[in-house]
């Protein structure tokens, strides 16, 4: 017994080092597996508050570009509204049936990273604003990512620039779907994999969300095809997608909640049994 105590006292520095290092290593390994990075993340009061204070100063420098983006989007929405009115003019719609399918919340980006291999954003909306896990996040240009953790006032977004991110996407002109991943290289490009060889892939075509996952609505823009190659297996294309969004400069985002998601989820699970 005496010897054990002596050993511990003699090697106390080394033992403490091993202990702390293994704690850190455990947290690291946990953070590399999806949905388990619960303890150490930036969606909490301390980090959110500090980033919020910083953001309240920082946002003044981007007011002009933010305004331009908003004006551009207003123009687009106005166009759609006018076109919509003229097409449905003759038909009668009972407003009690026109239940909205998506709820949209705006949020400020408090923290954005794009240089690491697993990137996250922190937003200033949380459980109090009924933000839940697995809601989609987008800007007027295209998708940003999926909410992966929430606290009372803040939430964390798993960016599309994250190796853990998998998003269902399709080529706009056809219905060929694939899954959108990121290889960790450039924040301008993501990769669309598992697209069937039957798909007519052309450089410059638009890639948009597929609507299969019930997180994002169908048809939100992601990017354009920059280049493509045949997979080593030979059955599928791997497509390099140039993003519409400048992921290095994101100020305001929209959080999309599909109000029918539970119903879809239940239906899919009941058929699987």
């Amino acid at each position, binding site marked *: 017994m005496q010897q054990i105590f002596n050993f511990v006292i003699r090697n106390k520095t080394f033992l403490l*080092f091993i202990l*702390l290092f293994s704690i850190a*290593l455990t947290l*690291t390994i*946990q*953070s590399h597996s999806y949905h388990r990075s619960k303890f150490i993340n930036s969606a909490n009061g301390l980090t959110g508050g500090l980033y919020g204070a910083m953001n309240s100063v920082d946002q003044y420098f981007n007011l002009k570009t933010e305004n331009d983006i908003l004006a551009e989007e207003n123009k687009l929405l106005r166009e759609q509204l006018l076109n919509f009115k003229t097409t449905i003019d003759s038909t009668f719609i009972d407003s009690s049936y026109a239940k909205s399918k998506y709820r949209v919340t705006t949020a400020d980006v408090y923290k954005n990273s794009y*240089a*690491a291999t697993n990137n996250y954003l922190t937003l200033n909306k949380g459980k109090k604003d009924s933000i839940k896990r697995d809601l989609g996040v987008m800007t007027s240009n295209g998708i940003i990512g999926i909410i992966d953790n929430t606290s009372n006032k803040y939430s964390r977004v798993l960016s599309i620039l994250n190796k853990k991110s998998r998003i269902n996407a399709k080529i706009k002109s056809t219905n060929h779907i694939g899954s959108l991943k990121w290889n960790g290289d450039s924040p301008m490009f993501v990769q669309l994999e598992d697209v069937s060889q039957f798909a007519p892939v052309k450089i410059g075509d638009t890639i948009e969300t597929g609507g299969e996952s019930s997180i994002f609505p169908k048809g939100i823009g992601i990017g354009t095809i920059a280049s493509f190659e045949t997979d080593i297996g030979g059955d599928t294309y791997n497509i390099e997608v140039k993003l519409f969004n400048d992921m290095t400069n994101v100020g305001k985002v929209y959080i999309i909640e599909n109000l029918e998601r539970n119903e879809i989820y239940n239906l899919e699970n009941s058929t699987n049994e």
Partner: protein
Amino acid sequence: MNSVLAVNIVRFVLLLLVQVLICNHINFFGYINPYIYIIFIFLFPIREERLILLLASFLLGMMIDLFSDSGGVHAAAAVSLAYVRPILLKSSFGMLYEHQSIKFSTTEIGSLISYISLGTVVHHLILFSLEIFNISNILLILQKTLFSSIFTIILSVLIIILFSRNKK
């Protein structure tokens, strides 16, 4: 004794704030960031208990991780740096360390630079290995280590010279 404690607490908080609010968002050439918070570990008083340094480094790394959503990579790298610090001190300062009489404000600039360079490379190598966590991306790890190290070393040396060498 109390002033040493106060100086280190202030240094801890200041470096943490500068790191998470400024240095994490520089993204020079897209991905190069300096990690200047390790100055805290470099300048920690030599005569203090090593256990305290280990614990303080772990706490600092953990705080950085908390802010940058990186799991535990900064904590692991900071603790490792704190653990190997005596070896670095011995190899860079030699006899001065044996006599426990190093004062960072008066040492030769050459020894100081070699001490900081060695420490930074060790820290960054562990940091990026854990962050990328994939042995097939070894080139990316080395590339990031090299460029970020250069950035960190230059900034750290400048900061140390600016803030601690002038008090004569």
